[in-house]
């Protein structure tokens, strides 16, 4: 299945968001996620079903002003 992850097309096997993070080696408790422009809380990832063409954003803390 093809997804857009952080702006890049990725061909993945995972069907759920938490499995996608593991598959793409995004691991840790310092990530925030969104699917198609909507927040997916960390607790909701195991039940968050993905489909072809979904846009996933995976963000992390950075320096800011």
């Amino acid at each position: 299945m093809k997804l857009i992850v952080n702006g890049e097309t990725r061909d993945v096997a995972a069907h759920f968001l938490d499995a996608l993070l593991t598959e793409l080696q995004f691991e840790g408790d310092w990530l925030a996620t969104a699917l198609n422009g909507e927040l997916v809380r960390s607790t909701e990832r195991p039940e968050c079903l993905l489909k072809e063409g979904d846009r996933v954003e995976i963000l992390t803390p950075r320096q800011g002003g």
Partner: protein
Amino acid sequence: MLTLYGIELASHLLLGTAQYPSPAILMEAIKASGTGVATVSLRRETAGGSSGDRFWSLIRSSGVRILPNTAGCHTVKEAVLTAQMARDLFATDWIKLEVIGNHDTLQPDVFALVEAARVLTDDGFKVFPYTTDDLVVAERLIGAGCEVLMPWCAPIGSAQGPLNLHALRSLRGHFPDIPMIVDAGLGRPSHAATVMELGFDAILLNTAVAKAGDPVAMAHAFAKATEAGHAAHRAGMLEPRDVAVPSTPVIGTAVFS
């Protein structure tokens, strides 16, 4: 004591965490500034990367309160989603709300800002809106539920200091009970002292400290200037006069001729 959304803070300075020469210097600057609040952002993580983890661990070890921002957002939708993601990650309902309207000046889109502020306060966020010094916009932000305002005094990173003292005085005078943090445009400690003397409650700094020749020494200098301006405002300053007034008593002056 500075009180922001019910949280009491000893320092009247908030510090940004970007553009420092190294993580170690950032940590020393936080300590030297005496700040109790540091701003952070959210950006895309790279697969297999852990830079976010390293930075997050570092900031957490400083013990300061986190104020996430929505820097780089240009629409209400982007800003609201970023705020929601920040709340999920940082476990705080504080958000520094930025909705940029102009690429050259990084001027906030105040119309989108008010709308986003309303959406977020309705959703339980404690919003710190980065705004201009416009009085009517300030009124709308307060109406949208903001209990703190963060007016600029000059464009972000410009180091020009307060460009419109009249507007800042007017803001302060119209909303005496709203905590106001001057955010953006400060370049020198004297700028910080000036706005604090006007009665502003705090300042938020980043570039002026991070890009200084010695960021740690500059953080310390800004801390002293900020507290000096705050103390001067509380002490009650003399108004300027057009004529000289002798400070030494005139009575008892000797007459030699």
